[in-house]
């Protein structure tokens, strides 16, 4: 409290302090609005499209059977625990945002080891029926052991994002890129 008191501006400055703080407040609200910060709390795939370089990933998913049952987060974010999920999302998201802002993205994006583990976990989460005893009894023990030790993606590597992965591989795909930050009413005024 003492520190706040010490920093408290003289009463004479009141008007300017209000002015500066309100400008700061306005800018912060604007940044939250223009970066769509709140959308990152959701599970909507459109959020991932905030970065246009995700277009090939979005469009390949959109044309796959997984579209009917999953969104990006269902596979790429841990789903066993809300806290772990948001922690993972925050860590991944901050790294992505940094790389995208610095324009350091590679031409071909490859999943990292940690991400791979999460995807594998999530494969098992939905496709657990492939591992129940009734199903496994069709196979010998060696085959079962081998299968359980392997990433699903080792074989199903084209599911669902197809064979070709480059920032340039889906240039004409129709994907929900972020819309203009300028509201329609302002555009109408500006175009007059």
């Amino acid at each position, binding site marked *: 409290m003492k520190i706040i008191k010490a920093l408290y501006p003289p009463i004479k400055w*009141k*008007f300017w302090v*209000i*002015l500066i*703080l*309100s*400008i700061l*407040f*306005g*800018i912060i*609200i*604007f940044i939250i*609005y*223009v970066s769509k910060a709140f959308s990152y709390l959701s599970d909507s795939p459109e959020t991932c499209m905030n970065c*246009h*370089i995700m277009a090939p990933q979005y469009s390949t998913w959109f044309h796959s059977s997984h579209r009917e049952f999953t969104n990006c987060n269902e596979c790429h974010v841990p789903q066993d625990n809300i806290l772990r999920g948001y922690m993972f999302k925050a860590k991944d998201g901050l790294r992505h945002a940094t790389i995208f802002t610095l*324009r350091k993205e*590679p*031409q*071909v994006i*490859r999943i990292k080891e940690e991400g791979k583990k999460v995807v594998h976990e999530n494969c098992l989460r939905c496709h657990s029926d492939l591992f129940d005893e009734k199903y496994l009894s069709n196979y010998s023990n060696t085959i079962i052991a081998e299968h359980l030790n392997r990433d699903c993606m080792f074989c199903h*590597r084209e599911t669902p994002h197809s*064979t*070709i*992965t*480059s*920032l*340039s*591989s889906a*240039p004409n795909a129709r994907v929900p890129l972020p819309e*203009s*930050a*300028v*509201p329609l009413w*302002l*555009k109408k005024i*500006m175009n007059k």
Partner: protein
Amino acid sequence: MKWSIKQLVETKPWAGWVLFFITSVFVFILGLLASSIMERRAEAQFVYTPKVEYDPLEPRSDIWGQNFPKEYYSYIQTADTTFKSLFNVSDDEDLLESNPKLVILFAGNPFSRDYNHARGHFYAVIDVVKTLRTGAPNDTTPSPQPNTCWTCKSSDVPRLINKLGVQGFYKGSFDKLGHECVNYIGCVDCHDAKTMNLKITRPALVEAFQRLGKDINKSSHQEMRSLVCAQCHVEYFFDNRDGKEKYLTFPWDSGFTVEAMERYYDAFAFSDWKHAISKAPMLKAQHTEYEMFLFGVHYRSGLACADCHMPYKSEGGVKYTDHHITSPLRYISRTCQVCHRESEDELRNRIYERQKTIKELRTILENELVIAHFEAKHAWDIGSNEKEMQPVLQLIRQAQWRWDFVACGHGNAFHAPLESARILGNGIAKVQEARRQLQRIFAKYNNFDVKIPDISTKEKAQKAIDIDYEKLKRDKQEFMKNMVPKWLEKAKEREAKYYIKNV
């Protein structure tokens, strides 16, 4: 003044909050306005706005580059010479020095004088001017090479063919058009100036397709992304039949295999040169890159040259073709890995594995050929006659044609490893048969005393076949000092008159 904001805020604190929120909203709207302005500015980057207008046959790429900066700036990176892979370099290192056996294999051919690694497109003109193969023309002696040599070196060629006609351009010695061909391969060689679509500008490819009964204009865009390269990166010869003079021709009439092209050449007993040691009528294979690519799995999977040598790139949401034409090994992360999910090291090793295997076979054939040439010389020396030697010389011709067909294309070992191995295997069989027949000739004359001189270095090998390298080099330096500056001056004068308009 009685009324002031200061007073108002002091007497009614809620007024301070009103002021706070009104200003915040005002700043927020100001931000929206700012982002609208930014958006309009960003749009400009996506709209094509030409900066200059120029002639459709404009040879200078830097003029085109003003309108297409991304493509131009990536293209001039072909000037970079730093890249090295296991067997290839992007600098003009001396191949004769690292492998003096080549001097013997090309004895009698200008390649025995001077043979370097190929540099990027940026150096196309300077490298053909400075190589000893094009001789040292001056006012009295012309170059030993024809004008045809310029065809694949300069972006002035479309302009000159338009002016002189096709045969008119080819004929005459190399120095005749030296002052006209000064711009290295560039935009106009592969692009239509109006639409920027890919375009075939070299007649030899169009004519080869016509003879095969195909219309090159019906090619798809993906095919064109290989065919523009096939204008030059192919096997060719200079045709002197039917009144033609040094007419650039692709020998594809009976097919693209090494045997089919050999049949084509054999049909009119064509040979590029007579070997100085064995006297065999030789064929010189030249950068068979396109033809060999047709036999590889990547062609069969629908890929074009540009997919790996000029990969697509996205920058700031704009997709464009990287015009830095180079080894795909330089950027595995955006060439191989677009399709292959293995690590860079794994992919690089797979390529090296193929290259090492082909190199191994190539070296076996190379060593045998060197000996075969000297053995044939020995056969002549001990009195063997034309009739005895004819089948031997044919076998040597066939074997070296097979060796050269694989060796002359830098990417062959990777583009088509199986086809390369097949060709080299057949070549080894041919050279072994030649040497077996030579042994029978030696037996007949009862003289097995073959002499092979010391060819362990470039100097020794060139001395063995009577090449005065120092003199050739001196003459060349003279030519570079006296003739070339005159060419450039003349070109500068001419280019100052070209049509250019700033838009």
